[in-house]
């Protein structure tokens, strides 16, 4: 039961029986420790994580493993948004969410999400991945042009998908036409 300040019904009773400061505690808790009371709303990274998961569902890899390794380059706030769907599956394959700490490890990922602010790492990531079948997803202008596959760009508060098909094909990945229809194609 969350500590909510829904005291209307029994307000009067409580008032009589409880010291004043105790009544006021739920409110104090609510203002100062929101984590205790309410979780956060859907924000940018929750949507982007959900989009990435859906994009992966419409992607096929040349050889399908037992698991889909979802690797994240970004801070722990980004990582946590992705972690929430670790329980999910893609066609009965389990997801593993991994925080990238070494760029050399990225070649073994099936999906790689690179959050903005990591632009400087792109060349090394490109070098590490080579033509390994890694679906790369990011959120920075110019990502497709420098060899990235899927770019999630926000315009007027909505996200648009940009896909570099030739980069996808080069890595022997296939993205379903349903997904391609929803995206803007970049060469």
């Amino acid at each position, binding site marked *: 039961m969350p500590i909510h300040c829904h*005291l209307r019904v029994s307000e009067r009773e409580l008032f009589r029986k409880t010291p004043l400061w105790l009544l006021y505690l739920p*409110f104090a808790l609510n203002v100062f420790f929101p984590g205790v009371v309410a*979780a956060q709303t*859907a924000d940018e990274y929750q949507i982007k994580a959900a989009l990435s998961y859906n994009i992966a569902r419409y992607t096929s890899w040349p050889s399908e493993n037992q698991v889909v390794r979802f690797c994240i380059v970004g801070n722990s706030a980004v990582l946590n948004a992705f972690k*929430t769907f670790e329980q999910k599956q893609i066609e009965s394959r389990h997801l593993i969410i991994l925080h990238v700490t070494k760029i050399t490890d990225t070649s073994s990922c099936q999906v790689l999400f690179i959050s903005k602010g990591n632009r400087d790492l792109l060349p090394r990531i490109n070098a590490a991945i080579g033509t390994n079948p890694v679906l790369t997803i990011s959120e920075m202008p110019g990502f497709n042009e420098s060899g990235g596959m899927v770019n999630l760009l926000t315009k007027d508060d909505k996200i648009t998908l940009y896909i570099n098909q030739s980069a996808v094909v080069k890595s022997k990945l296939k993205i379903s036409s349903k997904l391609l229809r929803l995206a803007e194609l970049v060469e």
Partner: protein
Amino acid sequence: MADNSRVIQGRILTPKAESATKLQWVLSHNPEANDILASWIRKRAIDHRGLFTMPPKHPNRLPTLLVSLILPMVFLCPGHQSRASEPVGDTYREILNLGLEDLLDMEVTSVSKKIQPLSSSPAAIHVISERDIRQSGVTTIPEALRMVPGLQVARIDSNKWAITSRGFNGRFSNKLLVLIDGRSVYSPSFSGVYWEIQDTLLEDIERIEVIRGPGATLWGTNAVNGVINIVTKHSADTAGGLAVVGAGNQEQHMGGLRYGGAIGDNTYARVYVKENQRGAFDLLAGGDANDDWSMHRGGLRVDSQLARDSFTLQGDIYRGNINQTLTLPSLTGPFFQETFIDHVDVSGWHLLTRWKHTVSATSEFELQAYYDYTHRDEIFADETRKTFDLDFQHRILLTDNHDFLWGVGFRNVRDHYAPSFVAPIFPTANSIDSYTGFLQSEIALRDNIALTLGSKIEYLEHTGLEIQPNLRVMWSLSDQHKLWASVSRAVRTPSRAEHDARFLASVIPPLLPEINPLPLPVMVIFAGSENFKPEDLTAFEVGYRLLPGKHFSLDIAAFYNDYNQLRGVRAGENEIPGSLDQPIIQPYYIDNQYSGATRGYEVSAVWQPQEWWRLDFSYSYIDLTIDRDDHFSETQFGHPPRHQVSLRSTIKLDANIDLNLWGRYVSNTKASYTGPLPYEIDAYTTLDANVVWRPARNLEIALVGQNLLDNRHTEFVAEAFIPETEIKRSLYIKIQMTF
């Protein structure tokens, strides 16, 4: 977003799975649709009759806040408000159940800045983000730096600042290195930084990284007490147009225009122009300080990003008219000093290019070159300086646990000084080369312990070889607790003036009993010396970072800085002139006679009690002791403010209105001063406040007040020549449009 305040109520008639899909379609264009759907699937917001109530998405938060601050003793059940803070529960799972079309149709809510994960850098580092700059209402880079714990930032007059880290502040504070996009703006002429000319479009700054403590190994000489690294945005991130106009009593008018976008397949560019006109302060003694000033600048940045290579070309050009009141020594009686209103012309430009190449996933190198021209013409110094700098660095992952970085650099500085009565520099023109090299290893000893060791090796024509090593350890106890410690050495190299200037500090009038009984005036001259050696620091630091939950983080750093060979002066022999119409000269030669220490700590904390409310707090303590406490050392070094406190509150009153408050306290300071005693400055408390309103997606209107608590307090005085001024209250309005 007119619907945001609406409470949506309704009744789910058939809570079954198949109708969920239909409802999803029906509501997919309603901003609240997904929330409703989410609540419905979760069945949390529905009572047993199938009734649900959606709270307003962005309610007015001011009442909650006022209640929580002002009326704590009144019992109030703010049920509806607290629930309104955001829909409860794991909305996220429901988002996961949505299809692609719906996700792409959702509005992205960029929530206020979250608590950042703990830095794993084994140094006292603080980052000012673009959001911090926007929310603080500052109009200059120096003012933004007041956000950094442990930095001493003080405004001398309308156009001059004294900024340092961990002590030894002054207009020409010489122990802080400042870089803008990898270009040093530290002046090798008189040391220090001319802050008034360091600027760009503030909206184009991505972040300002500040490291307190030595950063000499990576960043270079003069990074003794700290390094400030100003990083502007990649031009791919500044597509489109931005226009800024504003006006106020002190910020008399300001304007800025930027336009950027793709200019090729892999190439982005932006150009900007900017102007500011700022009003004068008042003199402490009364009257106008005549220190109003204007700056005009423009610049461009081009970035090209290929798969393995990236290129950057950037440049700026500026011109400014800066006014100042000067009181300069003179040989004319009866006062032997004269006060002028000086019009300073400043101008300059630079061009920088950088190439990064990735050889493989474990090896990359970077080559950077820049040319910088700067000109400054004031009564006592007319200076032209041309800097060419070339830097190469290479990073290799030798093994999985060993990251190795090495680099070499070359710099040539050519300068020219016009003849000057007060600060003549001889030779008037010079060309000085310096060579640097560095190597640094970062070794992961265990999963959670990293060791960084390295050294800078530097060769300067004047001073010879300098080795500046450092050793750092980072121990990550967990994601929530981190400890670090370091020992490092750094040197501060002599400026051109410390080597070659004969600086007229004052003229002592003739026939003053006891001071100067002779019938001739005495010129007191501080003379540079070829024997002046670099000042030297050994620093010991420890730090602790804590992130107990999503809503709070704490960062503590403590230091002990041991300085040797600090600058002092030694009286030389009087130079008695041959004839009676010339003054006596009393030279003081600079030397390295002092040593001393500073110790202190800095605490900074971020607390986000609500999604819409964030508090940034910092406190710093510092104490300075000079080993030989004599008259000169007191005036030369002063004493930094022992206590500094800063508290910033950022509140999202509504989806489109922010209220930002910023209070600061600085305890009393002794400024270093060329007078007979150090200059004591009283403690002060000040408050900035601003309201930002976004009436439309591309329009932002800010009403900003600075120094609201009083209309006159002194923050600092310059070492010499500049009469004391008082900072005025400032109010301005700024309109920003993107297109």
